[in-house]
């Protein structure tokens, strides 16, 4: 393959608020450049996980190389890097952006700028990307492109008068987007003769090729046989293959050089060796320093995952190990619970990540899971000076040993139309938010800034936000740090026995409310037994809420069915079947779904 002229390369990504049409535009670009005919196109080529298509979200970064014949008669190579759209994957987004030289900003012509639009634009500007605005969905009756153009200019400060007005759905004005990519997004810099310096923006595990590293070469070149070194993890390996990305396939080539986006396979067994953000260099001729911005991805949200059938524990372990090959952000370690037996404490980037992993375990690995309430990492400062990072509430030391505790706090931005400002402010107050500022973006929309404890938003904040604003609020957040807080462990006692899997950490101010709701919910879930079952919420030895499941008074098959014993047997068997899907805690049988019910304590 002939050397590629660096000036004919365009490396870019598409950024947008969720549902503004990012993936549809990507599909249209791929189709227009003739990489695939429309017959071959499956809607949204880049979201290739079944789950991604179903949920309409991008989980893993995807990349495709396209050849475009521009109006100036030249052939250009486009490397389109599709980024995950959800705040859980912010770090991946930022690394993907670092691999680009420009970004297409898609804004919905009817919705205008939303919280994630802003968050993504700021992220792109932070990476010195040239941002090319595109107004999408102009075919909608409610489209107001002029208003949106003004908004982009006023709020973001981007020149938007000649932004292409397109419909990614119908394919209208897509060519204009392609031409502007050539015109407005700069060609990559870097020198192929310098020592190798490449940014890893993703990696996947393939059972045939092993780990496949997705990277952007900033300097130097790499080809099969080169011994490479990951500068942060120190892992070394010999390159087996290099190449670029076709649509849904890997196309090998002779070498990759500065400015190019492509993949490397090497003798690597684990995606953990190739962490997103790390720099790849030539072990024999290393670059002076790694590229900036690498950080280790840490799990933010933890929960216990247990197989519904205890015998499936090894299956769950195998499944988690397999998922981890492709997902360096997934962490897990074995734990045991008195109530649930053997399982794993798992760490995730956020609640969406958790849900995705849970769904993949259930679907792809056919596992029936019991998941405990998700929690964040608390810092427990003990009186002896020791600091514990607490991921499992059961491990909280005795209160007498605790000096104080800290919890993670995020900076949140909520974009909302003015009529719902009050409702959203109330919500943030209830969730222990600290008001920072409010700005009007335009007459009818405002940007609210709050600091919120992470543990207040991991459950149902997003749902509450949507319901209180009738879907008009959008939300984004980033980790800010830790703050000292009055936290307590809330224990749940069923029939006077503490159920470890139901304990959770909560702010002392909301403990009563939470405890009360938990008890009410559990009362609904636990069937009647032969005896009365008290359900109590307690902090330490102090009971703060109580409900009672009344004893079963009558369950008698009084009628005599003559000799029809078969019928009687069927009734008894039905009764017995109901007991099977229960967990036995002391004398009480608790349905598995009760352990999950704590997740759904939504207020309104």
């Amino acid at each position, binding site marked *: 393959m002939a050397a590629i002229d660096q000036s004919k390369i365009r490396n870019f990504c598409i950024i947008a608020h969720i549902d503004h049409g990012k993936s549809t535009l990507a599909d249209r670009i791929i189709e227009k450049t003739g990489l695939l005919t429309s017959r071959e196109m499956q809607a949204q080529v880049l979201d290739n996980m079944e789950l991604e298509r179903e949920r309409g979200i991008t989980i893993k970064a995807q990349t495709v190389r396209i050849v475009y014949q521009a109006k100036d008669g030249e052939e250009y190579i486009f490397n389109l890097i599709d980024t995950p759209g959800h705040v859980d994957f912010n770090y991946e987004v930022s690394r993907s952006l670092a691999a680009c030289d420009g970004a297409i900003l898609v804004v919905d012509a009817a919705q205008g700028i939303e919280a994630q639009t802003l968050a993504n634009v700021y992220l792109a500007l932070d990476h010195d990307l040239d941002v090319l605005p595109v107004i999408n969905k102009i075919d909608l009756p409610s489209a107001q492109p002029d208003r949106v153009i003004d908004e982009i200019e006023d709020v973001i400060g981007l020149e938007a008068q000649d932004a292409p007005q397109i419909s990614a759905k119908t394919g209208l004005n897509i060519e204009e987007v392609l031409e502007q990519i050539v015109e407005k997004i700069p060609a990559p810099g870097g020198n192929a003769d310098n020592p190798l310096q490449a940014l890893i923006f993703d990696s996947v595990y393939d059972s045939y090729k092993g780990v496949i590293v997705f990277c952007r070469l900033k300097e130097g070149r790499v080809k099969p046989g080169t011994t490479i070194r990951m500068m942060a993890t120190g892992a070394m390996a010999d390159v087996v293959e290099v190449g670029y990305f076709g649509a849904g396939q890997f196309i090998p080539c002779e070498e990759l050089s500065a400015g190019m986006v492509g993949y490397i396979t090497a003798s690597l067994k684990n995606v953990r060796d190739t962490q997103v953000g790390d720099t790849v260099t030539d072990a024999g001729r290393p670059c002076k320093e790694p590229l900036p911005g690498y950080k280790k991805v840490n799990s933010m949200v933890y929960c216990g995952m247990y197989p519904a059938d205890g015998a499936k524990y090894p299956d769950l372990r195998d499944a988690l190990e397999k998922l981890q090959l492709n997902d360096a952000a997934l962490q897990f370690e074995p734990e045991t619970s008195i109530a649930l037996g053997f399982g794993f404490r798992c760490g995730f980037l956020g609640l969406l990540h958790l849900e995705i992993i849970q769904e993949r375990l259930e679907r792809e690995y056919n596992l029936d899971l019991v998941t405990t309430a998700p929690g964040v990492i608390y810092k427990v400062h003990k009186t002896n000076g020791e600091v514990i990072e607490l991921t499992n509430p059961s491990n909280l030391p005795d209160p007498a040993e605790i000096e104080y505790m800290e919890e993670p706090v995020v900076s949140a931005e909520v974009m909302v139309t003015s009529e719902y400002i009050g409702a959203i402010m109330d919500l943030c107050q209830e969730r222990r938010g600290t008001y920072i500022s409010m700005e009007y973006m335009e007459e009818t929309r405002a940007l609210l800034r709050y600091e919120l404890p992470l543990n207040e938003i991991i459950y149902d904040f997003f749902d509450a936000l949507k319901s209180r604003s009738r879907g008009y609020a959008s939300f984004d957040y980033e980790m800010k740090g830790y703050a000292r807080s009055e936290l307590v462990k809330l224990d749940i006692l069923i029939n006077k026995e503490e159920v470890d899997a139901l304990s959770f950490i909560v702010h002392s101010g909301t403990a009563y409310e939470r405890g009360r709701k938990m008890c009410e919910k559990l009362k609904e879930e636990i069937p009647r037994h*032969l005896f009365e079952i008290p359900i109590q919420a307690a902090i330490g030895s102090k009971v703060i809420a109580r409900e009672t499941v009344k004893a079963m008074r009558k*369950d008698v098959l009084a*009628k005599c069915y*003559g000799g*029809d014993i078969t019928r009687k047997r069927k009734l008894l068997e039905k009764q017995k079947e109901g007991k099977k899907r229960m967990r036995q805690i002391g004398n009480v049988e608790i349905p598995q779904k009760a352990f999950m019910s704590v997740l759904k304590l939504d207020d309104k």
Partner: protein
Amino acid sequence: MESKHKFRKELELYLHIPFCVRKCNYCDFLSMPAEEEVRRHYVNCLLEEIRQKGGLCREYQVSTVFFGGGTPSLLAGVQIAELMEAIGNSFSVASDAEITIECNPGTLDRQKLLFYKNAGVNRLSIGLQSALDRELQLLGRIHTYGQFLENYDLARKMGFENINVDLISALPGQKTEDWEYTLRKVLELRPEHISAYSLMVEEGTPFYEQYGRDERCREQGGHPCYLPEEETEQEMYRLAGQMMNEKGYRRYEISNYARPGRECRHNIGYWRGISYLGLGIGSASLMERLRFSNIGSMEEYLEHCRGLGKGTLCFGSQSAGEFLGEQSLAGILQNAPELLNAEQVIALDKKQRMEEFMFLGLRMTEGVSRKEFKERFGAELEGVYGTVLQKLCSQGMLEQKEGRISLTEEGIFVSNYILSEFLL
């Protein structure tokens, strides 16, 4: 009638008469109003079935006969006599056999009772349900309390000295006083036996439409609108036990009370696992460790019977001779159940027989015997059910006395829950 063989196996006969004047609002038994011609045709089929199956049961001696329904007393007295005659000719019937017929007040008269008496019927089971006419109306019964009284007195005068009265408690809107009234009225009559069931709201009945939701609400521990609260039901049950006890009746099964020696032998047989043969549509049987039931469709039953003469299996085209001598009853049931009009043939394995021994035996006040368990199954009761027994005893649901295990008063109320624990 007397047995020629000395050691015959015990057999109970059940004859299903699926006819009634009209369906009651709570009834989900296989029963329907029918023209006289259909009834006659049905009786003819029953006669055939008796002759055929009698030929296959020569090793058995019949200890009880039970005409159940429906309303067997809707048939003409002569029809019952014919059926009894056929039974006597085809089966070996013990001289002291208990022979019961279910009757509804309003369908009995002197003629009928005379036929019964001469046919050998020695026990009447009268479905009264309540002594209050408004409750009878609510239930959709065809009779008044007054009509019951007339029938009852008549039966007594004609010398029936073993009578059961059926009652139902926990009716919609019923108060404990109402139930007490019914009990008092009936106890004054001093029948030998009283069956007192709590109302079950069964799917597919008019009551289910009306009270199904109410019952589900109660099941979940809520407050029903029409049905009595659980506590009231319990109170009614306790009251029944207490009043009967005072008048010399003993509870021998969850819902059955009798004066000493007057327990219903037929029903006890079901709980004890004695063999029984059901005749007529939808009736259940247990023979040779096989459970099976007759086909439930009237149309099919009548069709199968049509045109077949004596000496053949009446419910198939092949003659009995081809099977008799070559194949046992169990063999026919397992290989060609259609010849016997049987369906859903289930061979009970040891596990199922142990389960049944427990969940049927525990319905009786005397409960189950450890010794008998061991004799039947060659295993210790503790070895099979140790954990369950221990748990339920500690919860006060079961009690152990003199080698027997039985439900406590508390246990009776939640008997379904408890009995289901004995499924292995």
